[in-house]
Structures are given as C-alpha cells and as structure tokens.
C-alpha cells in the first residue's frame, strides 16, 4: 500500500552527510575499485549497472557506508561472503559510494535537467480562474468568520421589514414553533432570513452543499443568479436538498442562502456540506466569511491525473486524453466566459456594436498577454486575435474563437515553451511556485517595468505572494501530499475492537489534523517546530470521548493538551497513527516507512518479495514489536527493515486507532527506537516525544523537507538547480529558525533566477 515504484527510488535523491569518501585516500579508493572489479563486477556490472544474467538491477541508494560495509561483509559475494570481509568490504563500500552508489554520484553520472512541462491540472484550473479574476477582483479571508444574516418579519426581504442584522457563525437553527427573537419577530407564522458572504475553500474538489429545512429555501454558490438548490417550493416530506460545486482551493466564493417559513407549524434551517474528504456537517464558521467575493470561473472538465511517479506532481508528459481534456476545458471556459464579458471588457449598455467589438477585441489581446505570460508580437496577435475579428465573423463568434485559440495554444498550455529567459520568465516562475498559477497583472507589470531585475524587489514580490491565503494553501497542499493524506480516505477499524471508530470520528480526526496544519501554515514563526514537536491537539467532544480525555466543552474543536507527556507533533497525532496501522493492530512498518521515506527522505526500494504480515492470532504470545522483528529478521528483509522498524517501534505506545497504551498481550510496551544517520552515527530515542525531538533536530529531516517542498513548488528535479541546492536551502531553513514561509520565498526566488543555459551554452 505504501510502496512506490523502483523508479521513484532512483530519482529520490538526497545528498548525504556521509564523510568517509571525502576522507578516503585516493589509493584506498583505488584498492576498493580493484576488489570490486575482481569480486563484484561480474554480477553487478563495472559501475553497478547490473548484468542481465546475474543481477539485472542497477545499484544505487542512500545507505550509509557502514550499512553497505556490513551488507557486503555478511552477504557478498553471494554464497561466499567470507571472500570479502573486514577492510576489504569497507574499501569496496567506500569506492561504490563515490563511484556510483550515492545520490551525488548518480547526479554526476546522469545530471538531472529541467524538462519542458505543460501546466499541471491544478495549474490549468487556477490559471483559467485567475485569467478572469485578473480583469475583476478577488478577496481574502479576514478575521471574521460566519455569514451576515438579515432577519425579516415577513417572507419578503424588504428593508422596512428587517428585524435583525447580525453575524451567524454557523447556520443550523431549530426555531421550533417559535421565532428567532420574540420581541423583534413576534409572529411565527411568517418570517424569513437571508445569509450572505463567502465560503472559504482550502482544498480543491467537489463540495456537496446540503440545505436542511422543513420550510422553503434557496442556495446560491459561486453563481448569483442560478440557484444551486432551489427549494423555495416546499413539497411533501422532503427536508434535504443537495447540490454540488467544484471549487478550487485558496479562494473565496460568493454564497447566499435565502429562507422563509409561511404557515408551517415549525421552522428549521441548516446549511451543511460534505467536503472532498469529510463527513456531512454544518459548514464550520472558519469556512464562512461575511465578506463579499466575485464569482470564480471554475473549469469542471475532468482531466487525466498528472504524473506523480517521482513523488511530486509534474507536467512532463502529454497524452491524447489530456489533449482532449484541454479541448473540452477550452470550450467550457469560453462558454462560461460569456457571462463575464461585461465585466472583463468593461462593456456598457449604450456601446454601439462597433464599440462593443472594439472593446472585446482589446480584451482578447490582454487576455492572450496574460494567458501567455508575455507580450505578443504582431504575428501572434494576428494568429490568436485579429484573424478571428477580420474574417467577417460576428463579434461573439470572433471572441469565442479567439479565446478557444488562446486556451488551446502551446503558449498557454506549456511552461516556458519559447525558451526565452527574461523578467517575464522570472515572474511566471515566482507565481507558479507560490500560487500554482499564472502571474498576476501586478507581476506582469513588474516584469514590464523592469522592477524585478534585482534580488531584493523580486524577493519582496515573493513575500507578497507567500503572505496571502493562496500562499498558505500552497503550503497546506504540500503537507497533504507529503503526509499522504489522500490515502487515508477510507480509514476503518475492526468494528468489534473499536465500535465507535465511525466515519464521523474519522472525519473529526481529519479535521483535527487539518487544524494542526492550519496552525502551522498561519504561524508567523515556529510553525515548523510546533508541527513537529507541539504538545497540543485539536479535540472535540466525540474525539475526547473516544480517546478518553475530558471533553473540551462544546461541539467545536478546541486545542487542548492531549496526553502531552506521551505525544508530540504530527507523528503522534491519532489520525496518522490510526492511518498508518492495520484494522486491529498497530503497524510499526507502515509508521516506519512513513518516517524514513516521508520525513527523513530515505530512498526505499520495494521489498524483494511481497509478504503479508503474520496475523496476530498466529503468534498469540508475541507483542506487535516482537512479531514484526521476528518476521523481518532474515537478512534479505533486515537490510531495509533495520531502519524502518527501529523508527516505527518508537510509536508502539499507540494502538491501531492511535490510542495510548502501556501494555500489549500483558507485556509492557517497548518504545525504544533508533536511527542510523547517513553519517553512520546512531540516534536513540524513547517513545514519540523523543522521536519528535530527534526529527525536529535532524539535518536529514530539514534536507528532506527542503527537497520535497522544492519539488512540490517547482515541479522540476532540485539537482537540476545545482548540486548544492539542497544543502543551501537546508542551511537557510535552519538559519531562519525553520520559518517555512521564508523557505518558500527562498525556493521561489532560487527557481525564478535559475538560468543554467547561460553557463552551459555551447
């Protein structure tokens, strides 16, 4: 389940801190090479590339030299391990590290390069939305949560009948046979309410909105005219009305709920939703804002998923399905755009047909400039705009064709397809890195005016982008990918052991975890530190009951101390602990793989044979730790499991549902764990809190975090940006108190200013 392909391991590069080769003498290396040639090359190939008959797999990885030495001494050559032991084994290992095995050596042999990329699916959708937005406006959440509510004494929303105006954090009311306020709305036979504001979205996907009422209601989401659910007519026993919208993360969408009761005995109204990964619940206040926002053009056309075989999403391949999707999406976008003509082209009612045509043609030119992220020369203007306006077509046809052509153009669909490197390239890279979208009008202007020539103004622009809601969401999306959250969707546990581990509880766990992430991305400082080592957890009553702590008092989530002597940071959050576990037992292996590959960034190959875990009832006297150790003891397994298990064991204090425990099978739980770093040094820790401290301090964590965040933001291999990139970023990260926003700015600027072609021009 948590495997990635071998290919993932190949490119999953991490620069080591191992020191032996650096200090190895040239003659020692020479000696290592000779032994390798004699004893190893016949099977593994002259430089570890493998041989078809004996051992076809290429050898590379990130094990410390000491691990390689041990492996060679105990297992190699196959069948006759005694032929290469002691110093010989170490000399071979050192030579292998420097010649081909280590990530550095691999990077030297096959230097990674930036590749031409198309827009990823998310970039496509964001770019189309931002193209429209660039002609209108946008809004960001502020410190007020909830919707503006206006209560009326009749069923008509007339000002003179308005009785109450206030902010409602959530909408989930049961007025019974009464009214919201006896004094201001005395009659229960007829009254109405209108809620208005925006819905705040931090994850892209389909949202199902649910209006629950015994009365009449209408809901508008991201469309001010056409209701998403129209239940103005109350009919029969229906009390639930559903409608779905596809919404993009990092934005506000206008929402309006209108409701009335008339001659009905009782009155209720609830505004609920089901998020892409959540359970049905009233829309929480933090996702509602009383602020206004413009409609967003969201392309709903399904796209084939982007390539993720290297562990990060990127757009380096095209397919027929993708090309078709871009066609449908262009048609959809051009159709939906019609609604925005008035705003984007500043049309007026009294415009003559000629004036209207002129304005729309001008709009198409600006649209192309923003879509292509650089000015158009006359040839391009002709190809994409003027031909359509000069071939005798009516205005609407001309606009539509021009928009279709622009949206189907490689200049829109690809990144840097012209190969030019200038200030426009800079601002594009900055924007894609930090907002996953085309540069804003301001950024294009900064390029046009030459304002981002120097490092300082470029950095200022990056800070502006990172300090927005979109910037926050960009980091949140990274965490979701980094922590594999999308794989934890259908989390289930043994119903007999954990009868109250319900889908609702899982949704609460996810919410609690998402709130932890939100704290991390909104914190001005110490976000990373708190994420990795923080001692508080967001809990609601249901979670508190399941995890047997005092209820935090109320239905909302509160941040409380939760077994803080045993738990620290996100690795001991019950959502992840339960997620990386079996239905009825913990799984030190899943947890260990997550820690080693995900957090510490170690390359893991898939197990040579796929093995199912020994069922607990086959070894009734053993603890999970004992059972796992026993099953993975063969040297073939221990090669990787030595590292995996000893990380995962530190979390054995938590069972399959992430509950704390001190015994298993009547034996005390052993939570000792350790990790051998790439330098060969060993760190030991006891339980989750010491593990968290180790992770926070480990340079390997920092390097892995920098590398993975870079890949998430830039979508190109980091080593294509110079062999020192990871080191430099990690140093900067540590030097700036692990400030994640600072790191994002650093990454964005590094990618924006990178221009290897200058150095390597032939």
């Amino acid at each position: 389940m948590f495997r990635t392909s071998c290919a993932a391991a190949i490119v999953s590069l991490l620069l080591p801190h191992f020191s032996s080769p650096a200090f190895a003498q040239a003659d020692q290396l020479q000696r290592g090479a000779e032994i390798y040639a004699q004893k190893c090359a016949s099977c593994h190939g002259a430089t570890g590339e493998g041989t078809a008959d004996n051992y076809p797999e290429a050898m590379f990885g990130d094990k410390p030299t000491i691990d390689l030495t041990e492996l060679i001494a105990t297992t190699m050559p196959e069948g006759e391990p005694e032929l290469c032991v002691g110093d010989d084994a170490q000399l071979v290992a050192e030579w292998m590290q420097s010649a081909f095995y280590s990530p550095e050596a691999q990077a030297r042999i096959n230097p990674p390069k930036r590749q031409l990329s198309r827009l990823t699916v998310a970039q496509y959708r964001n770019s189309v939305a931002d193209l429209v937005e660039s002609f209108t406006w946008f809004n960001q959440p502020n410190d007020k949560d909830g919707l503006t509510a206006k209560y009326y004494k009749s069923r008509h929303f007339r000002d003179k009948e308005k009785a109450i105006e206030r902010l409602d954090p959530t909408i989930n009311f049961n007025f019974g046979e009464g009214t919201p306020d006896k004094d201001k709305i005395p009659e229960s036979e007829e009254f109405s309410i209108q809620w208005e504001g925006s819905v705040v979205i931090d994850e892209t996907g389909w949202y199902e909105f649910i209006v629950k009422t015994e009365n009449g209601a209408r809901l508008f989401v991201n469309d001010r005219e056409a209701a998403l659910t129209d239940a103005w007519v109350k009919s029969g026993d229906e009390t639930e009305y559903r409608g779905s919208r596809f919404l993009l993360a990092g934005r506000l969408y206008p929402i309006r709920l209108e409701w009335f009761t008339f001659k009905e005995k009782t009155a209720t109204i609830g505004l609920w939703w089901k998020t892409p990964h959540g359970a049905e619940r009233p829309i929480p206040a933090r996702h509602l804002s009383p602020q206004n926002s413009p409609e967003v053009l969201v392309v709903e056309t399904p796209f084939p998923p982007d390539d993720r075989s290297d562990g990060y999403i990127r757009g380096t391949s095209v397919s027929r399905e993708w090309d078709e999707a871009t066609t449908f999406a262009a048609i959809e976008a051009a159709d939906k755009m019609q609604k925005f003509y008035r705003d984007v082209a500043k049309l007026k009612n009294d415009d003559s047909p000629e004036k209207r045509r002129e304005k729309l043609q001008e709009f198409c030119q600006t649209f192309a400039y923003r879509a292509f992220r650089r000015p158009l020369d006359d040839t391009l203007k002709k190809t994409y705009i003027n031909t359509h306006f000069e071939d005798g077509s009516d205005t609407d046809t001309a606009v539509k064709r021009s928009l279709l052509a622009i949206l189907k153009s490689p200049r829109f669909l690809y990144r840097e397809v012209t190969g030019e490197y200038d200030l426009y390239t800079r601002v594009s890279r900055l924007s894609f890195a930090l907002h996953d979208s085309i540069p804003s009008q301001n950024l294009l202007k900064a390029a046009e005016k030459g304002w981002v020539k120097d490092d300082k103004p470029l950095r200022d622009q990056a800070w502006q982008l990172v300090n927005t809601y979109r910037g926050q969401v960009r980091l949140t999306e990274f965490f979701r990918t980094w922590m594999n959250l999308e794989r934890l969707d259908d989390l289930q546990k043994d119903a007999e052991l954990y009868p109250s581990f319900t889908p609702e509880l899982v949704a609460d766990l996810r919410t609690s975890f998402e709130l932890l992430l939100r704290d991390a991305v909104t914190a001005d400082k110490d976000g990373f530190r708190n994420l990795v080592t923080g001692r508080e957890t967001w809990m609601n009553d249901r979670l508190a009951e399941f995890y047997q702590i005092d209820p935090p008092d109320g239905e909302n989530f509160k941040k409380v101390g939760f077994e803080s002597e045993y738990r620290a940071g996100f690795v001991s959050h019950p959502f992840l602990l339960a997620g990386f576990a079996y239905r009825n037992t913990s799984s030190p292996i899943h947890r260990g793989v997550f820690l080693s590959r995900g957090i510490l960034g170690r390359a893991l190959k898939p197990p040579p044979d796929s093995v199912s875990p020994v069922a607990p009832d086959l070894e009734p006297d053993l603890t999970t730790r004992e059972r796992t150790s026993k099953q993975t003891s063969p040297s073939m397994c221990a090669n990787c499991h030595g590292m995996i298990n000893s990380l995962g064991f530190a979390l054995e204090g938590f069972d399959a549902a992430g509950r704390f425990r001190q015994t298993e099978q009547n034996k005390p739980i052993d939570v000792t764990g350790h990790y051998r770093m790439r330098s060969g040094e060993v760190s030991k820790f006891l339980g989750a809190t010491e593990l968290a401290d180790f992770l926070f301090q480990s340079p390997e964590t920092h390097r892995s975090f920098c590398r993975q965040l870079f890949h998430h933001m830039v979508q190109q291999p980091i080593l294509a940006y110079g062999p020192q990139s990871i080191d430099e970023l990690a140093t900067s990260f540590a030097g700036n108190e692990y400030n994640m926003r600072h790191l994002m700015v650093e990454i964005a600027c590094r990618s924006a200013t990178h221009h290897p072609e200058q150095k390597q021009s032939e």
Partner: protein
Amino acid sequence: MNTRRDFLKQLGLASATLPFISNLSAFAASSAATTRKQRLVIMFSPNGTVPWDFWPEKEGRDFDIKPILKPMEAFQDRMLVMHGICDKLQGDGDRHMRGMGCMLTGAELFPGNVQGGSDTPAGWASGISLDQELKNYLQSKEETRTRFGSLEFGVMVPDRADTWTRMSYAGGNRPIAPIDNPYQMFQKLYGQMKDREHLSSVLDDVQEDLQRLSKIIGKEDRQLLDEHTQFVRAMEQQLQQDRSADLDHAMPELEPGIKEENDNIPQITKMQTELLVNSFMNDFARVATFQITNSVGNPKMSWLGIEETHHTLSHEPDSNKEAHEKLTKINTWYSEQLAYLTKRLAETPEPGGEGSMLDNTLILWGNELGQGNSHTLDNIPFVMVGNGLGFDMGRSLKFDKVAHNRLLMSIAHGFGHHVETFGKQEFCEGGALSLT
C-alpha cells in the same frame, strides 16, 4: 443556464468515458428505421377556453368547427376534439395549480408552502408526467433511443419555479423547467456542432504555432511538442470528417437579438416551433412539450389589439360579452399556433420514412382549466391532431365526465407502453379510452 451546465456535464462525463470523437458525433446517429417512428408533442395554453366558441355541437365525423378551432379547419380529418374529459384530482392546491401540476401526471400535489388564490397551500406534483414516462420508455429501447429523448420548450414562462410554471415532471417532486429562450434551446441542440466549427477554425492556427515553436525549442523538449502536435492534427482530421457527416442536419437560422418580452411572444413562439420541428427532423427526441406561458398566464396580446391581460380577462363572468369576444380571440391565437406547428409537420416529409412527419406525430393540446371564470377542471379543452398513434382521427368525441388519467393511458398505449394505471389509481378505472 441549466442546459449549458447539462451540456458541459455531458461533455465532461463523455470525455471521461468515451473517446472525444464518438461523443461529438453521437448526436448525428439515428437508429435504423425498422418500424415507423412515433412522436408526441404536448402543447399547453392557459386559463381555460370559451366553451361556446370551442366545443363542436355535433358528435362524430364531419363535426361543426367553432371559431376557436377555425385555424385548424384544414386538419379536421386528422383531429380529435374530446369533450367530457375532466381533471378529477383533489387535495392541496388551488385549481390553477392542480390543473397544471396534475394535467400530465394524473397525480395529486404534495402538501407544501405555495399558497394559491384559494384552497390549502401545496407543493409539486407527486408523480411523473406522461411525457417523461414515455421518454423513459422510448429511451429504454435501443431502436427508439434518441440523443435527448425529450425536449421541453416554453414561451415566456416566468422566471420562477412553482406549481404554476411546471407541467413536466421527471418524478414526484422533480419538476422540469421548460427552456423558453430559443437561443438557449439552439445552444442545447446545436451547440456541439457550433463548437466543432469554432474548433476547426482555430486548430489550424494552433498547429502552425506549434510548428513555429518546435523549431526554436531544444531537441530534447521537441519530442513532447511533436507528440502534442500529432494529437491536435488527429483531432482536426476527425473534425473534418464529422463535418461532412453533418451536412444532412442543417441548423435552423434564428433571427438574432429577439428579447424575451411580452410583445415578442408571436416571434418567440414561431422560433421555438421551428426548433421543435427541426429537432424532430434530426431525430434528437421523440417527445416534446411546448408550454406557452404558464398556468394563470397573463400575457397582453396587444398584437391582437387586446390591451387587457389574459388571466384578468378570464375571470369575467359569461355575461361580459366583450371580454369573451377577446377571450375567443386569444384562444384562437393559440389555435393558430397549433395550426402552424401542425402545418410545418404536415409539409415536412418524414426523414427516412413514409409520408409526412405529421403522419408519425400526435399533438395533444391541453389547458389547466375548462373555463377561466368558474375555474372548473371539468371539460378540459383537449384536442389531438396527427396520426402518430394510430387513433381513429377526424372526430368530435363526447365522453361522460371521464377522468383525464384515462386519456393519458390511451396515449401511453398508443406508443405500445401498456401501463395499467397512470397517476392516481382510482381515476384509471375503466382503463384507457378507446380511440382507435
């Protein structure tokens, strides 16, 4: 708005499951005509009729044509005028509401919060309407399946969803909004064809630009662009092929810029009629509803020189001769619309079949009331025209207060869909009316 969303949804779903091209060409396909096509149009006009200017006195063939049906005279031998058919549904809702909501469903309204001019408040109808029942029936069989199955046309239907503005139901509580904007209907019917035209015209330019870029880009990256170019070229070629296949299905030309306004009702009605006939020619659907205004419809037919509105006039007592002369004029205008539709179908040869399209189509003209001032649901002015269902046409029939559920059943049976009841069971007693 809805249709555009449906259209996109359709595109989206199709693109996920079907190759692009088969999706685009899907609507051109027509099933092999092994048996003759059968079609149904249900036309609606509001506020009851003027009985003395509508009902023939004679029964049987060679009946007398009263003023309101004068425009239909040419089709007398292909018409059934059916007196004595009553909407017997009781329950919640005023009669304008029940008359509308029960007309095609034969089922009561649910209790609800829509308060009419009298009676208790009500909600939507509690059952499926005949047009949708037949659509489902025809769509369930390969040989009668069409691109849309049914189309719901409207003319000046007010922009509010309530019991007075909906007669078609996909099921209980599931009203279907008619499309009363001809341009919107055009987009629904021909939008894909238009989009293909647009696409063809831009793909050339895109290819040209791809080639330009391919020359300046690095060798390693060129492969990706070349791959992309191939996809674009393949699509363009396919579009060209499809285009030649489209020539049979000419798109109607709509006069641009007709606004949805009272005074444009005649023009909009004509445009919708043309789209309806055209959609049948292309076999986009076998069932259509054509809802001119709505229950309690209140247009001001100034083009007839009438300055009072229809519903207001319909409340005048029988003794008000002047008002009733106007009401006769108004109803005659609706009759003219029916005659125009009938004529268009009669003069259009059945594509791929025998005779005219009218030979294979049945039109039912209905109303939510029998007469406006009494609000009676008895003697709803039901008229049928066309030979689509093999009924024995050319007669004036006088029934003895039969429930209209039985008429709905007859139409279903005419399609070979032998329902034992339709709508409220107790009103189906006696079974389908025998019209053959």
